[in-house]
């Protein structure tokens, strides 16, 4: 029951992130919101894992945080206008 309330609050936070992704005036705004959305999905995976008692959701959370980091770094270097090899 408590986990259901926590999940609903995280869902409202996700909707706020989606508002910023759709509305954001510049591309860096959208990139910030995508980064935050990825970290929120890790929290969702944690709640799903302790609700169902299985451990592979934590595998999803770990790999999701890894790829979220890589994607954000790639978008940041793309915004900076440099190559990836310097």
């Amino acid at each position, binding site marked *: 029951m408590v986990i259901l309330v926590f999940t609903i609050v995280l869902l409202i936070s996700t909707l706020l992130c989606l508002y910023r992704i759709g509305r954001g005036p*510049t591309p860096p705004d959208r990139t910030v919101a995508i980064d935050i959305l990825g970290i929120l999905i890790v929290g969702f995976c944690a709640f799903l894992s302790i609700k169902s008692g299985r451990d592979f959701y934590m595998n999803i959370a770990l790999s999701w945080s890894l790829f979220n980091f890589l994607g954000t770094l790639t978008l940041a270097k793309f915004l900076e206008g440099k190559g990836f090899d310097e």
Partner: protein
Amino acid sequence: MREVIAFVIMGIGVTFDFLGCLGLVRLPDLYNRLQASTKCVTLGTILIMAGVIVFTGWNQIGVKALLTLLFILITSPTAAHALARGAYKAGVKLWDKSVCDQYGGEEQHEEAQN
């Protein structure tokens, strides 16, 4: 008792997540939004993972939650730093009422002070 402590820690974490996303919507500038949302959401997710560790103990879920906690603690400020630097190089303007721009060098710093 252990579940109550875990739920309190997770509740604090979820509150931080919600406040960070509220700052993502409400604040006026890219850099203000980056500061509020990144710090609050990083702390909130770390507290959720700590609550998972307290809730389940040292089984497979707890150890993976500890690994995810350490990974987010290292990578999320790094990503925010790279993102702020990229946005500044891409030419995103500061807010009109911003006081000081120390990354822009001495001239803009003095301009902002005058």
